[in-house]
């Protein structure tokens, strides 16, 4: 990529970023929250939501290219400048930015000196760590290489969001995360920074823990420490740059929790607009989550229980009726223009929350395709090659698996969490004791703890027992961080040894959490070296010899980069690495089986417009590999160009 082309691409990206942030700011002004932490949540959620919506609509219209996107962004900015009320609102940005800086300075000033020094060091190290991992490594987590990033690669290459022919049926699952990830690939037409797609929600999750702690009545320093503790959770840190959607669900869950805690509190009787804003933001967050991963539905009972119990079980109904009445009053107080714009915002939420399932319903007859749904022994929704089950046997199996992993004693913490919970030093060292303390001493904390527990149990009723399913629980360690924030409120300042010991343990736990995630505990130094010796633009997922069969490396090194490449892998095979980092490689699935003879395989390839067929050990069925290998050895129709890469013999 030339410097000029790179500058143009970055320029288009910048225009679109300013456009989306300006839109987010305009909506943010329509949703006054009344508290700085909730205002920060509002701005973050709206920015993530509108980025996803913008790219989603452009993708459906086939405009997923830097040029058209930049044109829309520039046109949108010009429109904002031309409409007086929007222009007047945008002119308030410097004033609001000043207020934000003021709040941040007040927060920073409220922290004790040792915490300021520790926080500054932790933030700096975290920034360097994120930047290094994003810059140094290509994507390598299994599910990303099978379906998350396969969607992203196809959309980026095709310039539109669409279904395509592939054996990886999980490309049908809700894909708001993938749309957001495309924001990091579409403009550069490259995956160099795609791992950064988790960082916005990582920040959102930490802010949500801070806001939740403040709603529980914790001080600024205590809430800050709780948020820092959650941000240091190893499982979350590893997943954030792991190109997966679980950190997104964790962030949306914790954001909903923070909004519900605020609504459940008594402090908000004055301004009906604040209640309205919280309800609208809650709806937007949950709809965004619904279109990201279906298991948010399994977490809702816990949120609902917390919302009902927090105001007190007897006062719950009048309390929530009062909140809804306030929201309705807030709605009536709005002008027609504000009502329309907020209705549009909610409509966008319904679109992002429902599109994927409605599309699947229309295309396959099953909204949850490729999953059929079984509750107990009854098949509730048929169709689909996989089954989502809800039954008590799963609960027992999953709890047993959780018990086995509890304590993280079986091995290092890795992104897929095969042997550990990944909850880290803080959760086990300080968090467990803090949960016990907060449950015993704080009546306001108990509904929260029960909500977390219920969410965990309902989730465990339904997730497939597998060594890798603890990634669905990234949100859970937040309960310990909130409990710790509560505990800090009761920590006496004398004798001096008590706060000193508590601070030392806090710093030690967070430093060890950070230390354990400096790399992914899977990538050895020589693998880092392998990538670092290549220019940024040539760091290919296929070349990171981690979980990658050598056939993928051969396909990149010897394959036909500018021609159509046929491939055959199973329903859990890697497709993404074949696209190449710059998405130059066009791909086509060749649906052959071991029963096809050489002539039939060649015919399938020709019929799909390619002379090449890629297969790989562990990803393609053994029968197909054996068959194409035999075809090549017979010396008839096909020959082996390099390991795993077969080409139709030009002379045949």
């Amino acid at each position, binding site marked *: 990529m030339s410097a000029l082309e790179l500058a143009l691409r970055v320029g288009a990206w910048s225009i679109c970023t300013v456009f989306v942030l300006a839109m987010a700011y305009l909506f943010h002004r329509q949703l006054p929250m009344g508290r700085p932490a909730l205002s920060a949540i509002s701005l973050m959620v709206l920015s993530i939501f509108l980025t996803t919506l913008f790219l989603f609509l452009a993708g459906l219209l086939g405009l997923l290219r830097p040029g058209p996107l930049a044109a829309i962004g520039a046109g949108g900015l010009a429109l904002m400048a031309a409409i007086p009320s929007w222009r007047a609102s945008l002119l308030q940005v410097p004033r609001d930015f000043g207020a934000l800086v003021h709040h941040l300075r007040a927060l920073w000033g409220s922290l004790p000196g040792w915490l300021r020094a520790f926080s500054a060091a932790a933030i700096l190290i975290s920034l360097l760590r994120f930047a290094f991992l994003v810059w140094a490594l290509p994507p390598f*987590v*299994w*599910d990303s290489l099978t379906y998350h990033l396969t969607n992203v690669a196809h959309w980026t290459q095709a310039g539109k969001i669409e279904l395509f022919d592939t054996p990886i049926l999980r490309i049908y699952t809700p894909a708001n995360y993938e749309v957001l990830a495309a924001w990091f690939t579409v403009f550069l037409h490259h995956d160099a920074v795609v791992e950064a797609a988790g960082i916005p929600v990582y920040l959102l999750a930490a802010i949500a823990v801070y806001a939740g702690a403040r709603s529980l009545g914790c001080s600024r320093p205590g809430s800050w420490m709780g948020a820092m503790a959650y941000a240091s959770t190893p499982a979350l840190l590893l997943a954030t740059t792991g190109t997966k959607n679980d950190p997104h669900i964790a962030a949306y869950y914790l954001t909903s929790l923070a909004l519900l805690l605020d609504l459940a509190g008594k402090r908000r009787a004055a301004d009906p607009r604040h209640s309205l804003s919280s309800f609208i933001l809650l709806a937007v967050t949950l709809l965004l989550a619904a279109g990201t991963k279906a298991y948010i539905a399994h977490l809702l009972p816990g949120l609902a229980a917390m919302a009902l119990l927090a105001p007190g079980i007897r006062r719950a109904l009048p309390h929530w009726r009062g909140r809804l009445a306030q929201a309705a009053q807030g709605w009536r107080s709005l002008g027609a223009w504000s009502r329309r714009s907020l209705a549009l915002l909610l409509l966008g939420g319904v679109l992002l929350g429902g599109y994927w399932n409605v599309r699947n319903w229309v295309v396959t007859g099953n909204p949850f395709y490729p999953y059929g749904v079984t509750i107990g022994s009854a098949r509730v929704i048929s169709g689909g090659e996989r089954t989502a089950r809800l039954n008590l046997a799963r609960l027992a199996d999953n709890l047993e698996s959780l018990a086995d992993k509890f*304590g*993280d*004693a079986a*091995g*290092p*913490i*890795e992104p*897929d969490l*095969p042997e550990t919970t990944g909850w880290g*030093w803080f959760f*086990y*060292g*300080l968090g*467990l*004791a*803090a949960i*016990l*303390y907060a449950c015993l*001493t704080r009546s306001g904390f108990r509904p929260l703890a029960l909500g977390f527990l219920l969410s965990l149990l309902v989730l465990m009723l339904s997730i*497939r027992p*597998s*060594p*890798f399913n603890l*990634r669905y629980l990234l949100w859970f360690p937040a309960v310990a961080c909130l409990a710790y924030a509560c*505990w800090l409120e*009761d*920590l*006496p300042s004398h004798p001096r040894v*008590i706060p000193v*010991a*508590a601070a030392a*343990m806090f710093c*030690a*736990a967070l430093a*060890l*959490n950070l*230390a*354990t*995630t*400096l*790399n992914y*505990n*899977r*990538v*050895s*130094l020589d*693998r*880092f070296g392998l990538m670092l010796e290549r220019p940024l633009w040539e760091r290919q997922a296929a070349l990171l010899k*981690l*979980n990658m069969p050598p056939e993928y490396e051969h396909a990149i090194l010897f394959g036909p980069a500018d021609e159509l490449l046929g491939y055959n892998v199973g329903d*859990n095979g890697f497709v993404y690495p074949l696209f190449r980092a710059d998405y130059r490689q066009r791909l086509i699935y060749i649906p052959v089986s071991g029963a096809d003879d050489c002539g039939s395989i060649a015919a399938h390839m020709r019929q799909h417009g390619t002379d090449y067929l890629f297969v790989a050990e562990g990803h393609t069925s053994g029968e197909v590999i054996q068959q194409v290998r035999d075809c090549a050895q017979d010396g008839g129709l096909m020959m082996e160009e390099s390991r795993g890469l077969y080409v139709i013999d030009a002379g045949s």
Partner: protein
Amino acid sequence: MSPAERALSKLEIWGLLAASALLMAWYAYPQFIFSLYPLYELVRLLLPGLLPDVAPAASSMTAPTGSAG
């Protein structure tokens, strides 16, 4: 707060600190080794040749874990 309540409150705080210290000690084996290993690798990356490669001894850290399914 009565003297008895104050004493109980202090006991709670000390108890929690002691429990936390015990839990951290429990968590430390074997996570302490796993936590320091990336730091060790970082030093090896920044100062090549200073420290030996112990990766074969900790082979579980580089072994592929297979499909997340």
